[in-house]
């Protein structure tokens, strides 16, 4: 039963793959975009939810990843997979650098700093017409020549599954424990032997790398990159998705991305009024369910898995004995 949460996710994945062929082109596009946001939401959850680093530069890294891959494939005719890889590497390096510069910052200071970085990236992309094609948008090579979106669905699915697997391994490792300790109390974490600075830099680098991967896929799916990909509205949307789902767990962050993206499409007939509705949902979430609306639905499965599973190591019964002897 310890595998119950993983089994549930696997079942959901199989169901999604089985149903993919039945979706019409419109809903398949919505599903693909939801998976793009799911990669971004889960990686932002790694940064903000697990490590407590409330960065607002995540969409800027998605933008950097997309433009890097787009420009390399367009101008240097680099194969798309290498373009994507280059985008990931550039974002990892950039994320690590931002993490290093922000080492002493947290809370609102970190948010404002990363917001500033994000705006610098957006404005630079918008104004450097010769390099980025500016506001007109950079046309990018499509990933497939196929007339249907199904191959894109499978690629998005594979990228999301691989990203979640890697991030799950990370959060279940000692690094995940250290990140949560840093979120709870940085001073106590460093007193406990955690190399806080290294962990923060690595968290920024990894999360930014996943953002770059998502951005790269988006560039080669949509076929055009514009500065709007990294703007504040997009970042706000990502925050809403993650917070409404539950930012302290990867599955709830992913669920948040799907729920919000599908609801946005479903409520499209209400035009701009659907956005205030999400604002109200966000307010209610922060007031009534700080761990997100999906966390209460996900936790019982985790508890069921824990309750029926074998403990990692049986508790010893040595009474009041000097430890370490």
């Amino acid at each position, binding site marked *: 039963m310890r595998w119950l949460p993983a089994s549930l996710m696997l079942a959901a994945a199989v169901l999604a793959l089985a149903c993919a062929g039945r979706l019409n082109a419109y809903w398949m596009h919505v599903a693909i975009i939801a998976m793009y946001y799911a990669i971004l939401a889960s990686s932002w959850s790694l940064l903000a939810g697990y490590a407590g680093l409330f960065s607002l530069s995540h969409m800027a890294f998605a933008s950097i990843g997309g433009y890097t891959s787009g420009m390399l494939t367009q101008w240097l005719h680099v194969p798309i997979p290498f373009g994507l890889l280059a985008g990931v590497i550039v974002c990892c390096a950039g994320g690590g650098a931002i993490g290093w510069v922000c080492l002493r910052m947290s809370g609102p200071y970190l948010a404002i700093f990363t917001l500033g970085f994000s705006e610098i990236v957006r404005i630079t992309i918008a104004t450097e017409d010769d390099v980025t094609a500016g506001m007109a948008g950079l046309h990018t090579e499509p990933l497939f020549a196929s007339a249907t979106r199904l191959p894109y669905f499978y690629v998005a699915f594979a990228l999301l599954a691989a990203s979640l697997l890697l991030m799950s391994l990370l959060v279940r490792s000692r690094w995940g*424990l250290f990140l949560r300790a840093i979120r709870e109390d940085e001073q106590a974490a460093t007193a406990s032997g955690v190399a806080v600075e290294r962990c923060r830099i690595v968290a920024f680098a990894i999360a930014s790398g996943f953002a770059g991967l998502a951005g790269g896929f988006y560039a080669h799916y949509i076929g055009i990159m514009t500065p709007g990909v990294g703007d504040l509205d997009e970042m706000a949307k990502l925050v809403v998705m993650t917070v409404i789902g539950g930012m302290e767990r990867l599955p709830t962050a992913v669920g948040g991305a799907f729920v919000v993206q599908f609801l946005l499409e479903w409520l499209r007939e209400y035009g701009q009024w659907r956005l205030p509705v999400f604002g109200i949902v966000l307010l209610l979430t922060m007031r009534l369910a700080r761990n997100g609306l999906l966390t209460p639905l996900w936790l019982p499965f985790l508890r069921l898995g824990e309750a029926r599973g074998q403990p*990692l190591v049986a508790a010893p019964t040595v009474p009041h004995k000097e430890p370490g002897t």
Partner: protein
Amino acid sequence: MSGRTELVRGVGLVKWFGGIVANDAVDFAVAEGDLVGLIGPNGSGKTTLINLLTGHLAADGGEVRVRGQRVSGRPPHVFAAMGVARTFQLTQLFGRMTVLENMLVPGLTRPHSTWEEVVRRARRNLDFLSLAHVERLPAKNLSGGQQKLLELGRCLMLEPAVLFLDEPFAGVHPRLRDELLERIRELHRGGRTFVVVDHDMESILRISRRLVVMARGRKIADGAPDAVRADQAVLAAYAGL
């Protein structure tokens, strides 16, 4: 101190906060097996000294040595890796993490540690501290005294050479305080070295083998508890006599 390995030494430590000197050329050394009580009136610089000796503050003057190696200016996790553990004046736990997870964090920072071994050791330490029954609770749900015990347990997970405990008895129920005192004594008998800062003179005098007194940022006495208690300078600074 002769014959025993010196674990931590601060030489001529100076720390300024604005125009106020918190530590004024303080020399302080701890040797293996010591159980030092560090006392002094409020604002005498005790916590600042601990912060300097554990890497949580950088000194404006002087240097810190751990096992003879100069470590001034290094981050606290380096001190922890060298066996210097500490608790905080106001308990600092990983509140939303479970008691067991609180113990695992320092344990897993040790080189070559494995999850199974660290979990086993954490449970043994929790058992020793009478916290085994709450291992699945979030640390923030523990009582004040249990939180102090957990903070001590977290230090033990580092397998430290020396533990600096900053006001471990403050606000703790007398029954839990006695338990805490007993655990410190037991650990000391097992070979652990302690520096304990507290205002609870009764508790400090019950366990200390050596007493260090600070006043106005300076060390004014250092020696056996009986000798220090009779010191006129200490009486003047501490009791205003």
